[in-house]
């Protein structure tokens, strides 16, 4: 493996290119017309244009990606996450074209991508699954009959689904038909497959997932859990490791179940088994939710507590080499927290935002890591996921990590486009976060108090007004201030006066 084509964009493409460079492997970036000068393009040794901005004509176009790989002389493909990362056809096509696909086999992707097939396989392997029904009769009447069997409350899910798309919680029979219609509409739009299945709704569950890694010799290990319960409409917002509610007994049970799940599907490379956990302590029970057959957005928290670079590990495993460690060598050290920085407006139902980032300053300091896909001046478009960057911190204890995370969030400045950074700060300051009393529904329930104008924000507003009023005429880089302020710090655009550049 000498030259890897990274079939992705944004922060994950930047992160993969960095890992390749560290291992002396060349990288080829791909880009749409919207990303011609994006950070992931500038990081790579070579770059290939895919097509116009819409993902369907660029990052999702298998033929164009394979063409780019051939033109650039790449011998391997890293799919990142999203786009084609869990598309079995893409993995298969890469291997048919003689390229190493940095991920699992197409069969494992296909099996785990079919939620119904995955449930059956997990149940057969002794991995607990949520009680549910997979109706063969997908008509409205067939689904109603299945709903009576499962009982309310229940969850309608897309058979081809993931990421919360095409998923609806239904608490009573009267709301069932409408939920089915909405889930089918979303599932068809997102996956081109409107098949649905029903599960008992696990009330107030936690979402806890386990990182696994497997090599071609049959060795499979887990790299402990990630706590991902802080979600908004099934999109993760904050992730951490270890989970503050997983004790040693549950950790062992989750890890063993995750390894069993990976082995059952003949898994190769790194992946994640997601579980729902209900109850606490001795009473805690867990159920298989789904497997993500790829690198996860939140993989850095595992990297920080285990010291393992998961992208390095992916490259090593894809090259056919064995796992460099056994289970006994793996430890969780300290505590890591990740927050996802999105271009979205918390006050407007978290609507994704488009626009130019006029000012961008990352936080720095011990134990602070930022994985970013943007820089100052980047144009954020409506074509792709609004994830701008991830802020990840590591400290000795959870309390120290929270304090470090709060400080780093406070030092992170993004202007010109609305982001969820202020919302993340309010979330971290919420007593429920410190005490770890939250489940997957907590954020949606607490939204009202978390988006309200906080006291310290109100207190700082006159300071902000004073700063805003002092800046004259401005612009991204050319802000100027009246009077001695400008003279104290001369800025050519402020002091140039009536001269003409010739």
């Amino acid at each position, binding site marked *: 493996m000498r030259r890897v084509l990274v079939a992705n964009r944004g922060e994950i493409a930047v992160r993969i290119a960095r890992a390749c460079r560290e291992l002396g492997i060349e990288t080829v970036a791909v880009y749409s017309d919207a990303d011609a000068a994006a950070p992931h393009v500038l990081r790579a040794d070579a770059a290939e244009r895919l097509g116009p901005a819409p993902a369907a004509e660029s990052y999702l176009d298998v033929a164009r990606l394979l063409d780019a790989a051939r033109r650039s002389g790449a011998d391997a493909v890293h799919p990142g996450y999203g786009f084609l990362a869990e598309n079995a056809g893409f993995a298969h096509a890469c291997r048919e074209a003689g390229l190493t696909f940095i991920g699992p086999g197409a069969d494992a992707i296909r099996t785990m991508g079919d939620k119904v097939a995955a449930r059956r396989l997990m149940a057969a392997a002794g991995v607990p699954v949520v009680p549910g029904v997979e109706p063969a009769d997908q008509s409205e009447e067939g689904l109603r009959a299945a709903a009576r069997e499962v009982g309310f409350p229940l969850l309608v899910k897309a058979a081809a689904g993931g990421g919360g798309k095409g998923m609806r919680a239904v608490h009573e029979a009267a709301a069932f038909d409408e939920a089915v219609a909405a889930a089918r509409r979303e599932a068809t739009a997102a996956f081109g497959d409107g098949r649905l299945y029903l599960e008992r709704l696990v009330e107030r569950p936690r979402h806890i997932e386990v990182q696994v890694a497997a090599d071609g010799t049959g060795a499979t290990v887990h790299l402990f859990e990630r706590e991902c319960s802080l979600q908004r409409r099934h999109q993760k917002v904050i992730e951490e490791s270890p989970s503050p509610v997983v004790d040693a007994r549950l950790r062992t049970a989750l890890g063993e179940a995750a390894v069993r799940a990976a082995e059952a599907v003949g898994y190769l490379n790194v992946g994640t088994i997601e579980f729902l956990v209900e109850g606490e302590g001795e009473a805690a029970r867990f159920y298989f939710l789904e497997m993500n057959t790829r690198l996860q957005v939140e993989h850095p928290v595992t990297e920080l507590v285990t010291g393992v670079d998961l992208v390095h590990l992916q490259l090593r495993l894809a090259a056919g080499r064995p796992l460099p460690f056994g289970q006994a060598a793996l430890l969780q050290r300290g505590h890591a927290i990740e927050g996802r920085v999105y271009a979205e407006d918390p006050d407007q139902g978290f609507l994704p935002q488009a626009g130019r980032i006029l000012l961008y300053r990352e936080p720095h300091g011990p134990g602070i890591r930022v994985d970013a896909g943007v820089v100052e001046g980047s144009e954020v478009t409506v074509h792709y996921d609004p994830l701008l960057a991830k802020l990840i911190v590591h400290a000795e204890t959870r309390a120290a990590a929270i304090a470090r995370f709060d400080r780093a969030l406070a030092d992170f400045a*993004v*202007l010109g486009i609305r982001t969820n950074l202020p919302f993340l700060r309010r979330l971290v300051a919420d007593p429920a976060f410190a005490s770890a009393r939250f489940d997957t529904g907590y954020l949606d329930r607490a939204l009202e108090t978390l988006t309200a104008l906080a006291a310290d924000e109100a207190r700082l507003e006159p300071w902000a007004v004073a*700063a805003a009023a002092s800046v004259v005429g*401005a612009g991204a880089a050319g802000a100027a201030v*009246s009077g001695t302020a*400008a003279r104290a710090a001369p800025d050519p655009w402020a002091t140039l006066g009536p001269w003409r550049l010739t």
Partner: protein
Amino acid sequence: MTARRALTATSGDRTYQVDVSPDGRVVVAPAAGATFEAVVHYAGHGRTTVATDGRTRLAHVVDDGTTRWVWIEGHVFEIAVEARTGARPRARSAAGDRLAAPMPATVVTVPAQAGQRVARGETLVVLEAMKMELPLRAPHAGLVRAVHCREGELVQPGVTLVDLEPDGGAP
């Protein structure tokens, strides 16, 4: 030499009268409550410092042409600044009253009806973009004056979808 400037600044639904002296001294008077006084220095590349007797804070400021974006200690403010004239300043930004799509999107449903009273946070229009359903909610309680979209319609960013008159009278 710049003369002393009399300005009006609006942040959310709060309005301030601001006086800026040539030496960087700034007086910020809210509609109600204590006046805030500080000295502001510009350090370049969007960095300013705001100093009072006891405390100096860093603020990042950029101007996108219509709005000044200000960052202080992790908080972000979008502030409209205009010269103060004899006229009564706008009590509320126009954006609060005309709700628009932030991006190209398809209208899925329109729960809002003209003439309807709505509470803050109530869903007025459900949009779909990037395969996600996105609710457009009322930023404040008020009266729906008019609805300018219908189900299935493709709408462009910035185009008004709903006119919402805030409670407490027309702006």
